[in-house]
């Protein structure tokens, strides 16, 4: 028996309740679609959320603009140390892995991404990126709305700690969170023993008809049942995985490795989401940011290498975003405050490599912050249409002009 959304939105009219209680882990059928079937796609999107507001200006650095050094007397990165991109911008010195990806034509830098009337609260701005909707009533995230359109393989997985973010929240609730493979088995007996009858009873008690009318109770029941099923699937998907690639020993590295394992295991999900935290560098930014850049670059480069080694490089594209960039002018505590526009990175063999769009002006500012020229929803629309193969208007509620991001877009135009 499935709960309807109406059941879950208990008293939405009387209490004005917007807190839906989702079925947390209900998921699509197992088994990936055959890639060669007519109309079928097996492309995979990996999203890396940079939480806290990445200082985009010190990530892709407009070294040639004198306004840069003027705004960042202490925090500036000098040209000689940068990872070379072109005559205008260079990458933060710790982004060596990204430099390698760029040489291999596997990295795309989309500059000046943002949205109108930027919000500088972490939570509000992250919500805006997660929801990508102007409708106040919208409670689902953009990928949560995407999943059902992708079809039975459209379910997503969150790799990290805690609850999956709002971006993935949709009609079927939050997708599962995966941290490690080994703590994903239900224990019913000591040591190597099993207690088959107890295992059955646990599942049976979770699937019985409830007398209680509480949606929360039903929700936890469904979550429990789905958890037992998912654990079995994931065990099967990852049994025989091996890789020669040495991932950095960072949390992000291990998370991306887990994603590579799941992809290689043939798990049906096509949307994977993870995050790297700590970008809220209000003070003593230099060492913090360097370490974050190094973590990001190392993990993503290893992941891309691994994906290629296992022959999935044509199917996988990775994307990064942050809730906002940081203020152009550094603050008095060797850090930077919340800002607005910033860049997004795309990694993969299917993308158009290099720099897309100009770096925003450092002098024509919006309340001290960079102005965006590319709405992030245009980027989402492009990813939805050109990579996941779904109608972006159904997800975003309106048409956004696509950005030339994928190699096949160029071919089809010429």
């Amino acid at each position, binding site marked *: 028996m499935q709960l309807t959304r109406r059941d879950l939105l*208990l008293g939405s009219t*009387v209490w004005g309740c917007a807190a839906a*209680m989702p079925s947390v882990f209900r998921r699509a059928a197992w088994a990936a679609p055959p890639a060669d079937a007519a109309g079928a796609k097996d492309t995979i999107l990996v999203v890396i959320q940079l939480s806290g507001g990445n200082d985009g200006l010190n990530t892709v650095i407009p070294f040639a603009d004198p306004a840069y050094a003027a705004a960042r007397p202490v925090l500036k990165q000098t040209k000689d140390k940068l990872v070379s991109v072109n005559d205008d911008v260079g990458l933060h010195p710790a982004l060596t892995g990204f430099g390698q990806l760029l040489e291999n034509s596997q990295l795309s830098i989309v500059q000046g991404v943002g949205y109108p009337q930027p919000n500088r609260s972490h939570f509000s701005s992250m919500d805006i990126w997660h929801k990508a909707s102007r409708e106040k009533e919208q409670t689902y995230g953009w990928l949560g709305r995407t999943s059902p359109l992708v079809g039975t393989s459209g379910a997503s997985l969150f790799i990290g700690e805690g*609850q999956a973010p709002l971006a993935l929240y949709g009609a079927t609730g939050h997708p599962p969170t995966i941290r490690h493979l080994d703590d994903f088995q*239900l*224990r019913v007996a000591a040591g190597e023993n099993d207690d088959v*009858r107890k295992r059955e009873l646990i599942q049976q008690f979770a699937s019985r008809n409830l007398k209680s009318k509480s949606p929360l109770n039903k929700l*936890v029941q469904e979550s429990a049942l789905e958890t037992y099923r998912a*654990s079995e699937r994931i065990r099967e998907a990852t049994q025989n995985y091996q890789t020669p690639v040495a991932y950095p020993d960072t949390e992000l590295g291990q998370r991306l490795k887990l994603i590579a394992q799941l992809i290689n295991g043939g798990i049906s999900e096509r949307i994977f989401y993870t995050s790297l935290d700590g970008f809220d560098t209000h003070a003593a930014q230099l060492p913090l940011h360097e370490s974050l850049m190094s973590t990001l670059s190392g993990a993503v480069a290893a992941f891309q290498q691994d994906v290629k080694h296992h022959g999935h490089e044509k199917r996988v594209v990775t994307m990064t975003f942050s809730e906002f960039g940081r203020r152009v002018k550094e603050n008095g505590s060797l850090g930077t*405050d919340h800002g607005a526009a910033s860049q997004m990175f795309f990694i993969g063999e299917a993308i158009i490599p290099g720099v897309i769009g100009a770096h925003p002006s450092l002098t024509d500012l919006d309340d001290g912050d960079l102005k965006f020229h590319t709405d992030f929803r245009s980027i989402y629309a492009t990813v939805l249409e050109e990579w996941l193969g779904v109608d972006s208007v159904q997800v975003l509620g309106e048409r956004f002009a696509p950005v030339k991001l994928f190699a096949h877009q160029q071919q089809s135009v010429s």
Partner: protein
Amino acid sequence: MPETQSPSAAQDAGLQEFLHIPPELLWQPYVPNASDPWDAVKVAHLYRRTSFGASYAEIQAGLKTDPESLVRQILNTSRNKNDDDAIAFEHDTRQMTAMALDSGNSRELQAVWLYRMLHSPQPLLERMTLFWHNHFATSNAKVRNLRLMQRQQDSLRNHALGSFDDLMQEMTFDPAMIIWLDGNTNQKGKPNENYAREIFELFSLGVGNYSEADIQEAARALTGWSVVNDEAVFQSPLHDAGSKSILGETGRWTAGDVVRIALAQPACPKFVVRKLFREFISDSLEPTDEMIAPLVEEFRQRNYDIGWIVGRMVRSWLFYSPLAIGQKVKSPVDFLVGSVKSLEGTMSLVQMAETCQTLGQNLYFPPSVKGWDGGYLWLNSTTLLQRQNMAFSIAGNTRTTDPAQLTEKYNIEGDETTATFFLDLFLQQHDPEIVAEMTRYLQEERLKLKTTFQSDSSREAQLARKAAHLTMTMPEYQLS
């Protein structure tokens, strides 16, 4: 509305029916009657929300009193700073805290806090301290000073059931908070807006009740405070003494004024009442303004008296209705401390602290200034499985939380009685179908165990553990 339509008349209808009850009736004190009696479900519910759960004996004792007496006892005990037991307990825990601080290990400090939750004679005070830790969420990940984190917790505890006004003032000048929100670097001429923003957004008003300009001005008012040698210090040369306009009030405001102005906003009592509603009534229903209106104005008139509003909530008809009972998801702390309390056992406190972290609630390290999201977000497939596996280790621990000790203590014999006992202990309900299934399972297991060489008492003990584990893995056990 006709008089005959009392809230309890709606009890047997679906939850939807409850939503039409006028707000003032929802907050009337609950008075037991024949159709809505004072029972084990309600006693255990009160203990889960105002303590961290109850033992079998506490539930039985609670049934013999009435709701008003039990609520008064719980509130008075936790509000009485001169209670002999509380003073003695405070003395002991201070020593434990000092040792934990000397170790410099946050796990040790978490362990002491869990010890408080398990054993404090003032459990409501501990619950509220945890509630405020989540509200004024400060993480040692950035503060990196356990002494300051502990000092903040002591302040939270000191005002936990006092006035929210005092609590806000105290937190504004709290050293850990100043470090956490970059107050240290917020100086005249180069303001850092972090602190001002969170005071409005997360501590007092909520999004939409202030402007960006208010934040910039409040940040100026907050300048000059920093932490020197572990103390909050005001340095007037670093303070911007100019005139500021904050939420419509203009003057040469300082930090204290920011709090005063925030507390005077109509949005403030609403914001705090909503948060308390989520804590005490339901984390799955978002109340409308009309619903909480009967509490909001009086809360402000009573100078934000937290003890008063908590008392008002846990006495209410709403609190004992299906809109509240089982309408929260247990936090990791609720789950672990509650399980140990029900089993009248103990547990390695350091292990308990580690498990809290694994399950998503690393004390002294909330994930962001927003605190833990909580509610159904505590549960995902990983944490749910981990909770089930934790239930297995707790119910299977023969030394510290042995369910077999309980069956012995309360003279529980026979498979059906055992099944019923654990269902009543953990869930306060025993569906006959579940009892029958569980009894059949215990009988089958009894036969299997008879073929192995072991004593009668060892066999009975194993069966008790199996029954306890099965009950703790029922989905309902995740709810509070």
